[in-house]
């Protein structure tokens, strides 16, 4: 139960802080921010999947989150410098991973729910 409450609570706190901050981001930075969010979501879903499989490692989770986020944003930035839309590559890669993680989570959740009913 705590595993579900803690992320939701953290998300709400982060949303409140992010919306309360009085900054105005130019449209040019929107792509970097979007890719960074996508990478962060991928890491979160990967962490949830690992937690369900009882192999969650906080060090891997934290390093994966920040490295993926920063690397995704950096990749988008480099792509804009090179004139290649590398944002698309990041979106595809993270999108595939997110769906895979979601599928794994779904399977884990369904198996867990089946086990008590089978017993």
């Amino acid at each position, binding site marked *: 139960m705590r595993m579900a409450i803690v992320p939701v609570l953290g*998300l709400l706190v*982060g949303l*409140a802080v992010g919306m309360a901050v009085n900054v105005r*981001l*130019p449209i040019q930075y929107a792509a970097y*921010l979007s890719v960074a*969010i996508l990478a962060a979501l991928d890491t979160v879903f990967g962490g949830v999947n690992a937690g369900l499989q009882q192999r*969650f490692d906080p060090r891997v989770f934290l390093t994966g989150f920040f490295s993926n*986020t920063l690397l995704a944003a950096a990749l988008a930035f480099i792509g804009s410098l090179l004139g290649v839309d590398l944002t698309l590559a990041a979106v595809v890669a993270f999108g595939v991973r997110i769906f895979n993680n979601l599928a794994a989570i779904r399977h884990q959740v369904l198996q867990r729910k089946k086990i008590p009913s089978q017993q």
Partner: protein
Amino acid sequence: MTPVSLKALFGVSVTLGILLGLEFHVDRTPAVQAYTSYLSQSEALNAALARTGVLTRALAAGDAQLHALEEVSGHARVGLVDLRRELVHLEKQAGLTPLSGPGVRIRIAFDPKLPTIAGLTSVDEATQLQMVVGALQAAGAQAVAINGQRLVATSSIRSVHGLSASADPFSGVVQVNGQPVLAPYEIAAIGAPDRLAAILTAEALGQQFNILEQSFAVSLFRRGPITVPAYTGPLPGKYATEVGM
């Protein structure tokens, strides 16, 4: 899950929430719209600048008009002061203001000590007073009054016989400015005292009055305690008006 894992999960969630919150602060105004807004504001600025010239010229014209009005007002003020000064001068000349200065005061009164002229029953006092006034004016008198009645250009001195019950030769009534004045008569005249007295002596008016049983006393005032009151009678204009007005 261990507490460390929960802390890591919480930190990542907070960071993700912040990233999502920042998404709301992205300025998603289209570039075209921004450019259009820039163009419209630029046009508005140009229009305002063009209007500034017009307003500046209108302001300058208003300033010039204000200066002109102030100048005219100044002229009118100066003219008003001149008119008031002229009015005071004219009132002084017309005898509408009291005057004071050096002069003579003449007292004419019946004197029973003087020898009686047989058969003298009346004296035309108005004519006698007119003679005195004429002599004084000939000597440069600037203001004359008889028993407090100021003589002006429209003044009259006339005798009305038969109105007095007195038995002496001063049996008539003299009207000055239409107002009755009774003997003894006191004539106040402002002017050079010596010249006024000299003309009275030269004309021998005193002797003439003495013959008519009237004492004729002249007092000289060289430093000016003589005060002649203002004319308070009616002014022309009630019935007579200037032609063309």
